[in-house]
C-alpha cells in the first residue's frame, strides 16, 4: 500500500501503528487520490511506486503507512493549541503592561486630529526649522501638507504621522538603553543579535498572527506592538555599534582622568555615538512607515487604510494616490531626520 509500509513491518511496529489508528479527517491529497481511483481503499491494487518517486519520509507520508504517526496538520494544530493554552496567562501579564501603548496611540491620535490644520502645519514647520535650519525643507513640508489637505488626504496623513510619532518615541526610549546595554556586555550582545535578526527577517504578517489572538483587533496597541517590534531593530543595532565604534583613544583618556562609568557613558560615549544613533532613528522611522500599511489590516488608521481599500475594492486611483502619499511622507521624514543628523555631525567632527 503506502510506500513506507515495509519499514514499519520490518521494525515490527505494525501493531502499534494499527492500535494508534485514529482516523481523523482526510487530507485533500487523500481525497483526490480516492477520487481518481488510485490508492488502496477501493481494493484496487496500488501500482508499485517507482524508485525515482520515493516520497520524502515526512509526517504525512509516514502517517499513510502507519496511522499512529501524527500528520503535519496535527502538528500545526498542536502549535495552535499550545499557543491558545498559554494565551490567557500571557494576556493577563501583557495586557496591563501594554495598555499605556493604547492610551498613548489614542491620545496622540486625538491630539493630532483635534488640532486644526492651520495650527498644526505651522507647528510642524517650526519643528522642522528647529531640527534642520533649512528653509527649503520647511517649504517642502508646508507644501506637502497643503497638498495633502487639498486632495482631502490631510487627516489620513496626520493619523499616520501620529502613529509613527508615538512608535518612534517608544522605539527610541526602549532601543537606546537596550543598545547601550548591548555595547557594554558581550554576552548581552551575543544574546540579542539573534533576536534582532529574527525580528528583522520575520515576515511582517507573522507578527500580526499571535497578536490578533492576544489582543482584540480594535485595540490600537495591537498595531502599535507590531510596528514597534519591527521598527526597533535599527535603533538598537546602531546604538550598540555607535558606542562600540567610539575612538578607543578617547575612551582611554576618559579612563586615565578617572571618569566614572556614568560620566564616561553620558559625557563621552553617547555624545560621540549620537550620529550613529540618529542614523538608527532615521531607519526606525522608515521601517515604522513601511509597517503602517500592514498595520492597517488590524485597524490602524491613516493612509494605509486607503491603500488597503485600493487593494480590496480594486480602486486603483485611491490605492495609487495614498501610496504616493506614504512615499511623500517617507521622503519628508527622511529628509528632516537626515538634515538634523548632518547638523549634529557638523558640530562634532572634523
Amino acid at each position, binding site marked *: 500500500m503506502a510506500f513506507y509500509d515495509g519499514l514499519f513491518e520490518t521494525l515490527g511496529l505494525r501493531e502499534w501503528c494499527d492500535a494508534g489508528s485514529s482516523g481523523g479527517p482526510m487530507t485533500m491529497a487523500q481525497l483526490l487520490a480516492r477520487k481518481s481511483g488510485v490508492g488502496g481503499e477501493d481494493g484496487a491494487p496500488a501500482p508499485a511506486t517507482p524508485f525515482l518517486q520515493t516520497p520524502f519520509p515526512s509526517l504525512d507520508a509516514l502517517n499513510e503507512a502507519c496511522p499512529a504517526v501524527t500528520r503535519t496538520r496535527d502538528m500545526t494544530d498542536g502549535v495552535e493549541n499550545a499557543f491558545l493554552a498559554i494565551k490567557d496567562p500571557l494576556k493577563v501579564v501583557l495586557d496591563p503592561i501594554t495598555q499605556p501603548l493604547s492610551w498613548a496611540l489614542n491620545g496622540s491620535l486625538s491630539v493630532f486630529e483635534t488640532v486644526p490644520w492651520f495650527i498644526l502645519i505651522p507647528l510642524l514647520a517650526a519643528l522642522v526649522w528647529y531640527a534642520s535650519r533649512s528653509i527649503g525643507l520647511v517649504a517642502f513640508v508646508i507644501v506637502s501638507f497643503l497638498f495633502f489637505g487639498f486632495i482631502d488626504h490631510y487627516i489620513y496623513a496626520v493619523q499616520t504621522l501620529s502613529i509613527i510619532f508615538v512608535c518612534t518615541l517608544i522605539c527610541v526610549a526602549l532601543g537606546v538603553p537596550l543598545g547601550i546595554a548591548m555595547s557594554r556586555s558581550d554576552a548581552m550582545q551575543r544574546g540579542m543579535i539573534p533576536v534582532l535578526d529574527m525580528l528583522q527577517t520575520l515576515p511582517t504578517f507573522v507578527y500580526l498572527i499571535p497578536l490578533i489572538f492576544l489582543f482584540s483587533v480594535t485595540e490600537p496597541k495591537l498595531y502599535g506592538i507590531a510596528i514597534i517590534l519591527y521598527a526597533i531593530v535599527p535603533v538598537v543595532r546602531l546604538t550598540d555599534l555607535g558606542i562600540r565604534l567610539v*575612538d578607543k583613544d*578617547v575612551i582611554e*583618556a576618559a579612563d*586615565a*582622568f*578617572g571618569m566614572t562609568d556614568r*560620566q564616561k557613558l553620558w559625557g563621552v560615549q553617547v*555624545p*560621540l555615538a549620537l550620529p550613529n544613533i540618529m542614523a538608527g532613528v532615521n531607519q526606525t522611522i522608515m521601517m515604522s512607515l513601511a509597517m503602517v500599511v500592514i498595520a492597517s489590516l488590524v485597524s490602524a488608521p491613516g493612509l494605509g487604510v486607503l491603500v488597503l481599500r485600493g487593494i480590496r475594492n480594486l480602486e486603483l486611483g485611491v490605492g495609487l494616490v495614498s501610496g504616493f502619499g506614504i512615499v511623500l511622507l517617507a521622503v519628508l521624514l527622511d529628509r528632516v531626520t537626515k538634515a538634523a543628523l548632518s547638523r549634529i555631525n557638523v558640530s562634532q*567632527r572634523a
Partner: protein
Amino acid sequence: MTQDPIISIKGLYKIFGPDAKSKIALVQNGMGKDELLETHGHVLGLRDIDIDIAQGKVTVIMGLSGSGKSTLIRHLNRLIDPTAGEVVVNGEDVLQYDETRLRALRQQTMSMVFQKFALLPHRTVLENAGMSRRVRGEDQDTADAEGGKWLDRVGLGGNGGQYPHQLSGGMQQRVGIARALASDSPIMLMDEAFSALDPLIRTDMQDLLLELQNELHKTIVFITHDLDEALKLADHLVILKDGAIIQQGEPQHILLNPADPYIEDFVSDINRARVLRVRSVMQPPHTNGFDFSGTVDGNATLESLIELSGGDTNCCYKVADDGIDIGVLDMKDLVRALVPARPSSENGVEAR
C-alpha cells in the same frame, strides 16, 4: 638619587594571553619572547622591570615600537594590570587599590598626555582643558578658570571656543598638555606625546615642556622612540628592548658608556657634540702644567666649546659651576668623546 622615589616599580611582569599567570614561572626561568609566543601562544609584554622615578624629575623611557614602553606607562595608572610585580606610588601599592581609590589616583595624582591627543571632539578646547576638574566634580567656573589659565600658559588663550578638529596637531597637543596640567596632579605621564608632530613643532613642544618643567617641577614620565628627544628631556633615561630594561641611568653616562651593542647602535647616529655636556667629559680639578684658555660652565655643550676654542685642540679650560671649580677640560678629551666608545666592563656600566 638622594630623595625617596615618588614612583617605584618593582619586579613588574606583563604577559598577554588567556592564561598569563601560569606562564610567569617560565619567563622568570629565562624563556624569551619568541619562544613563549611559539610554544605557548602568549606574548611577553614586560619582563622584570625595576625603575625608581624621582620626584620633580623627567624620567624618559625609550625603546623602539614593540619594546613595551607604552604598556609600561599604562601600568603606572593601571590602565593595564600587570601579571606580577608592584607599582608603588607615594609609598602605596596601587595594585591593591579598589576602584574608588584608583579613580582618585587618576583624578588627583596622575594626569596623562596621549600620542593621538585623545581630546573630546564634541567639547570645546576650553571644556577639554578643564575636563579633569569637571571629572572631579568641581563646578563649571573653577573648571573654566583653571582650563583657561593653562590654555593661556601653553599659548592657546584665544582658542578656547574652538573645537579640537579646528586646530592643528601641535595646537591639539598643547590642549592635551593644558588638560593634564589643569588637573594640578604632581605626576604627568606622557605617552609618545610629541611623536605624531612635525619635527619643527616637536622641537617647540619640547622647549615648551622644559620651560614648564623649570617652573613647575612635576614628576614627568615621558615615553619616546626618539633618542634625540630622550636626551634632550631626560634627567633619568631608561632604555627598553623586547620588554626588558637593558640600561638605565643618567643620559650622558649612557651615551659615553653604552652597555649593549643595541644601545651603541642607537647612540652612534646622534650628534654627540650637541648632546654631551662639559661636566661629562671633564677631568677632576688639577693645575699641573696647564695654561687655561678660559672658564666654562659645566652644563655647556661640547658644541659650544668647539665654537669657543675655534677648533684648537691644544686649548684647555677650567670648568666651573657658580664660580666653584669642578674640573678641567682638555680639548683632546673632548674630541675623543665625540667618537662613540666601545663598551667595556671597566667603565662601571650601570645596567640592571
